[in-house]
């Protein structure tokens, strides 16, 4: 397999010119070619959501997308949430509500929640749980993740 192509992945506003095989997943390219290891891989078949990133504003499972499909698109990962020392509202809410233990699933949940709230700020609590049920966490039992996202949603609505 040597069908490599030149593509540009724009991650958190920064362009990465890379050369990848057609079969290279976006998740692997973000992590290995672009060195952004905050995006995690938990299953590589689209079930766990650990690899969730935003592509043109939409939450996407980066293990199910090929890197070449994201050529030229705007990608946001967990590394792009905070502004310098100042955490994103969602990150702070996870901390204050103990929404993480081992933290492996956390980047995926953060990106999923941010992506959804940026598009639908008034999403109902019930629908929010529905959305969050698309990612897996093995440590927290979800309660504190739901609390954190609700708290962040309230704060995002106010600002």
């Amino acid at each position, binding site marked *: *397999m040597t069908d490599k192509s030149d593509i540009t992945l724009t991650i958190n506003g920064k362009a990465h010119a890379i050369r990848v*095989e057609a*079969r*290279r997943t976006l998740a692997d390219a973000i*992590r290995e070619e672009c060195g*952004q*290891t*905050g*995006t*995690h*891989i*938990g*299953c*590589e*078949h689209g*079930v*766990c959501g*650990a690899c969730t990133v935003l592509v043109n504003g939409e939450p996407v499972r980066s293990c199910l997308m090929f890197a070449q499909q994201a050529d030229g698109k705007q990608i946001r*990962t*967990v*590394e792009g*949430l*905070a502004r310098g020392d100042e*955490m994103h509202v969602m*990150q702070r809410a*996870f*901390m*204050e509500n*103990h929404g*993480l*233990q*081992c*933290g*492996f*699933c*956390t*980047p995926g949940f*953060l990106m999923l929640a941010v992506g959804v709230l940026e598009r639908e700020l008034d999403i109902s609590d019930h629908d929010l*749980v*529905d959305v*969050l*049920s*698309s*990612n*897996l*966490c*093995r*440590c*927290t*039992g*979800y*309660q*504190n*993740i*739901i609390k954190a996202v609700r708290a962040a949603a309230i704060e995002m609505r106010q600002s």
Partner: protein
Amino acid sequence: MSAPAKPVLVGKSVLRKEDGPLLRGQGRFAADINFPDQIYMRVVRSTYAHGRIVSVDLAPALAIPGVVAAWSFKDVADIPPIDFRLTRLEQLAAYRQTILAKDKVRYVGDPVAVVFAEDPYLAEDAAEHVDVEIEELPVILHADGEVGEFRDGLPTETALIEKNYGDVDAAFAGAHATVELTLSIGRHSGVPMETRGAIGRYIAETDMLEMYGAAKVPHWNRDQLAKMFGRTAANTNLFEGHVGGGFGIRGEMYPEDVLVCLAALRLGRPVKWIEDRREHLIAANHSRQQTHHIRAAIDINGNILAIDDEFFHDQGGYMRTHAATVPDLAAAMLPGPYRIPAYRARGHIRLTNKTPGGTYRAPGRYESTFVRERLLDAVAAKVGIDGVEVRRRNLIPVSEMPVTRALETLGTDIVLDSGDYAKLLDKALDGIGWSTLLAQIDERRKAGELVGAGIGMFVEKSGLGPFDDVRITVGIDGKIEVVTGAASVGQGVETVIAQICAEKLGAGYDAISVIHGQTDRIARGLGAFASRVSVMTGEATRQAALKLRDNALAAASELMQLPADQLDIINGEIVRLDGSTGPSMSLAEIAKALEPGSNLVGDKEPGLFAEASFESKHMTYPYGVHVAVVSLARDTGGVTVERYLVAYDIGKAINPMLIDGQIVGGVAQGLGGALYEEFSYDDRGEPLAVTFADYLMPTAREVPQVDVIITEDAPSPLNPMGLKGAGEGGANAVGAAIAAAIDDALGQPGAITRLPVSPQRVRELINGIA
């Protein structure tokens, strides 16, 4: 004027030290570790559950450009099998697993060969070109069937665990009645979100072997690897980064850990291995699967006179690092919080052609609590009392504490150190509003709903010794480093240890960093398992912090020309107890004054530091009550968990927020085992749960709001702070409580005899099909 108040941190829900980097995507999990010039390992696994290896041809893989090496058993024949870490029984040694299968494969997933290549995609391609010919053999899939042959005449029953006290036969002979049940628990496991991973590196210049991606028990694994390779602990080091969930399974020594290290030594390049999810589900430890035949002798009031249990433990293909741990704990902990005058357990450890087993959160207790609590419910039904009453009649009263069980496990005698079980039961019932709940359930039943409530009680164990060491050092910049032999699997070790250190020393919480899982920083350590860290490392930290405080005050007294007993340390500053002002000093300044060569040091060891070891021969025994409320869908058999409550006595809580988190997380895993998760196999031993689409872990939709009541009614007398552990109490009784609640909703006492409870089974029971 009086001195400022000393901040209290132990008992407070302070925010976690761990969170910052994890939230910013700066975690260092195994897959995030890279070294220049590294190569990638891919394991070739058996596709047969049982078979004789006819041939392994590596040549086609080796012919692919970019493939660096490939090995089968004969290339690693000089490496001994992986040894036992706990609960060693000599007769089990013959059943250990070699790092690549020798002449037989014993489960789908058994490593047969390895390939090393320049790129992970390439390594995966190349692995498919290794030609493995296997002659299929008949499989054993039931631990309670006939005993087969492992090899060379060795039976597949590897050991019989026997534990007993009192005259069981006499109790049954004289009993008013007996109650007898057959119960089984399915096969499931921890399944952390991070798959396993290991990176081996050999530095020839210093003859140093390193492994990254270590977890749970880095020091033990270091010693084992050194032994297997004929090296010493001094030139072998293991490093723990972030660990994406432990739950018993992660961090035990597996064939892959040995293989990356061996390859690093032999090939002279760093070797990286990251497991994929399918591999994880067929190759990392499974757990839980047992079938119990249990009976109780009772008197006319439902008081238990004796329990007699015979069980079969399905260990899978080989005996791994835990040896007999899980069945041993099941047998030892089965009596739970009850007065059991006579007791006998016999556990058959059997090998089958499935993935080998190890521990999973509340190992042996999730199983035996399900069995015991089912038995209690059956006793209640037999004598016509309810589930609460039967428990009240049999609980050990607080007046009898401490209780010596005449049983031992994990090398310790079981001495229930403290506990007021009945009081916690009251608190749990109060917390859920038991009588109102029963009235509501009654109303809803009249309206045709299938709804019910169930209770499970248990005793946990925690704080396994025998020792833990801690060294605390204050730097000249005022930063305080606590070096421990503990490990962290994501449970908040750094936070808890920093809380204790900050409070006892009188330092700022933010100034403290906690080192764990680094074998080059501390000579020995036992790591993180069996809910031991808060208790053992916590107490060692308390002692070291108090010693350090004394050392700092002694130095300050000389420097400030004031008696030490008139000084205190608050937020890293030396203050005068009488509150008078005057020149002050910080811990940093004292550290500076104690630098090598300074007058103050004299002939003592320089630096501001202290060390302590805590030793403990006995475990501490926290306990808990679970209450579940479920409703059943008549058409689908679906089970909805409407309410869930856990009451748990922790002895003394260091950080209630973290304990709550441990408990809720444990409940979610327990629910998985009770209702959804199962590693099932077809009749050729082909695993059927190999993706997250077949191994169903609970999501945010399945896990209900869990109410947690943390009590401190029974501090442990075994350590001054009264600590007990919290890691496993959330999972422990979920199977028991859910089964009882489903029985109650069905109106069929004893209907649930097996976990997980599938919707199909519930539907059969609703429709009256036995």
